[in-house]
């Protein structure tokens, strides 16, 4: 038993070996031209610009960000629930519908989930131009698919015996379905729904960097003009927004017996569905579709992309994902385990928060001030950002864990670090690795963002192809992206199953 736990523990630390080739390339690519800029960037964090003009800009831009983030969250959660039900086995069992339809919807959702919201955003911008709705739609498309997967997984856990007992009562099918799915859906929403709002806001910021609007656009413009003090004003205001939203979420307690809240939520549910459909139709039919003609020439345009170059890009994307995943898995336990005291923990938490807060393109652009663009730099950026997320989970789990083993080991005279690894972390390692397997799915999708900025992999090729309206290339790149993400999801699903 102990041996098995130790294996999971080792597996959590081993991926840090990716730092050897990565570190080598980073050191060889270092340049000193931008150190001063980097220094300025860091100092500005403690001296953000604060005046009336910027405060008004921050409020206006945050309003836009919140609006895009909130509406995309609301729509994606509601449609996520609907598609979650439609892709859960329980639905097909109750209504005696062949599972074939379930498989079709699942494949469709997996494909649209595999493409990052930034890619959807760039594509939609090419077709419809820049407008407020693009941000919402670009986030909603992959988020609906992502949320539906989470809800469907929760519904798969419904006890088969509960299903049998309800079936035996011979209730109307819709009553049976509602009775069985109600609480799993509510519980998923409580555990996961509000966190998704934070994700929506982050995605809105990233889309903003690509010109959709909101505070992301201002962050990008500040960076481009090297106005770091202004940049940090936007970043800190974003941090305040995220912290405030978390505090508000903590105060909100969903009580199953609070009828007024539930009736209100049901009204919101149906109103959002109606509004979304009508708005979607309005958006599709009232937009100038001139640019859409370029999409129709999808199969007419030729591709200059050579087969070997294309294979190289695919390989780069896969390596980028693997290196980033390695950092995201191993860095948090290494740092927490090595600097195992209260002050270090607080510093690591602040560092992790900043890594989550600062959008990956901005981290990458900052690192580019003293390092040449390379695959390693892109991997480091993506790895650090995701390490910020995995460390948050690890801290939360470690804080709530029974510490008796750790205390007992320390009392036996075993060193603090060894006690932490064997007495504390080893019990979390399995579930931590399971979460990291899920996280690596997201990392594959996120390679698109760093790829666009860092001139690496398919992300960069996508940007190039889109800029030159080479739609055939765009299609090929998207298919390749989808395929990598789907294969990755299948592999990670297997790993996850073996770990849980």
């Amino acid at each position: 038993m102990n041996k098995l736990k130790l294996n999971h523990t080792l597996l959590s630390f081993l991926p840090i070996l990716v730092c050897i080739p990565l570190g080598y390339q980073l050191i060889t690519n270092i340049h000193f031209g931008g150190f001063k800029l980097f220094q300025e960037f860091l100092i500005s964090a403690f001296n953000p610009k604060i005046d009336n003009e910027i405060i008004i800009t921050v409020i206006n831009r945050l309003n836009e960000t919140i609006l895009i983030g909130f509406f995309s969250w609301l729509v994606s959660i509601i449609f996520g629930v609907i598609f979650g039900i439609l892709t859960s086995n329980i639905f097909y069992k109750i209504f005696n519908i062949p599972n074939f339809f379930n498989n079709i919807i699942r494949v469709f959702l997996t494909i649209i989930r595999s493409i990052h919201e930034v890619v959807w955003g760039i594509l939609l911008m090419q077709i419809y131009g820049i407008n407020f709705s693009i941000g919402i739609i670009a986030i909603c498309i992959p988020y609906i698919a992502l949320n539906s997967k989470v809800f469907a997984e929760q519904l798969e856990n419904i006890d088969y015996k509960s299903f049998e007992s309800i079936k035996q009562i011979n209730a109307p099918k819709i009553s049976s379905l509602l009775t069985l799915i109600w609480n799993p859906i509510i519980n998923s929403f409580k555990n996961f729904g509000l966190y998704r709002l934070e994700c929506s806001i982050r995605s809105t910021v990233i889309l903003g960097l690509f010109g959709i609007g909101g505070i992301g656009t201002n962050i990008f413009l500040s960076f481009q003009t090297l106005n770091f003090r202004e940049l940090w004003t936007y970043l800190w205001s974003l941090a305040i927004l995220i912290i405030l939203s978390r505090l508000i979420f903590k105060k909100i307690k969903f009580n199953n017996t609070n009828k007024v809240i539930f009736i209100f939520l049901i009204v919101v549910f149906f109103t959002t569905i109606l509004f979304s459909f009508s708005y979607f139709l309005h958006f599709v039919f009232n937009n100038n579709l001139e640019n859409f003609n370029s999409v129709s020439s999808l199969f007419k345009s030729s591709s200059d992309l050579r087969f070997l170059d294309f294979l190289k890009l695919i390989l780069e994307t896969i390596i980028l994902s693997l290196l980033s995943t390695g950092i995201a898995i191993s860095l948090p336990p290494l740092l927490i385990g090595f600097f195992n005291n209260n002050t270090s923990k607080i510093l690591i938490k602040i560092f992790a928060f900043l890594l989550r807060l600062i959008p990956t393109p901005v981290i990458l652009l900052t690192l580019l001030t003293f390092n040449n663009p390379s695959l390693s730099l892109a991997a480091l950026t993506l790895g650090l950002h995701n390490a910020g997320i995995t460390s948050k989970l690890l801290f939360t789990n470690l804080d709530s864990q029974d510490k008796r083993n750790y205390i007992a080991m320390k009392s036996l005279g075993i060193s603090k670090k060894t006690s932490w690894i064997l007495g504390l972390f080893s019990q979390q390692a399995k579930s931590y690795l399971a979460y990291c397997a899920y996280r690596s799915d997201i990392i594959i999708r996120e390679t698109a963002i760093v790829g666009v900025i860092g001139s690496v992999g398919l992300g960069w090729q996508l940007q190039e192809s889109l800029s030159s309206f080479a739609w055939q290339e765009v299609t090929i790149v998207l298919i390749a992206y989808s395929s990598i993400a789907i294969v990755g999801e299948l592999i990670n699903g297997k790993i996850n199953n073996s770990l849980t």
Partner: protein
Amino acid sequence: MNNILLELKNISYKYKNNLILNKVNLKIKSGEKIALLGKSGSGKTTLISVLNGSIKPTEGEVKLFNKSFEELDRKQKRKITTIWQDLRLIEDLSAEQNVNCGLLAENNFYFAFKNLLNISSFKKAHKYMQLCKLHNSIYDKKINKLSGGQKQRVAIARSLIQGSNILLADEPFNNLDPKLITTIKNLLLENVDKNNTKSTKTTLVALHRLDLLNDFDKVIGIRDGKIFFNIKRTNLKKLHLDKIY
């Protein structure tokens, strides 16, 4: 007059190459109170599952009201209710919501919705919970907060509230103290319908305790998936029990 409610003809059931039921023939008449005896693993639960239509036999024919299960409409299927050995309660719901689930069949979708929102009437559920000697302090408690005996009685209340004519119960006295066993046994065997008026109820109860047999009309003994005896309770002798235990 043919008053046979349930009929099994040459029923066999195989699961992973194991023969769980072996050519079982059984007729259950209206109003009969039957005790089903047999060792653990003898096929009692499978027999009950075949009788209520939740599993399809590998061979043979099951008839309820002289019709196969496929021919029955929902109203006819509702005439049969089961208390499962593993209870099959919905863990996420409260005790009273679980009991109200027994009323889902006779109500529409809106009732299910109100039940989940806790805004439906629990009057009827409370009545049956009281009959099962459940204290009102546990009515709104989630199932996972209840003791084994309380869960058992919630499952019984859920079955009784359905007011079905045929009651199948798989070891319903588990987790109950002697006083409660008597109360619950009387509830299961009494001829009272959902409107609290006298009616005919057919009951088949799988049990282990021989001291509880005295209110039953018939006793069926099962071993290795075969019915060894199907006799009047008054004719039951040690010889019969030796065959199955």
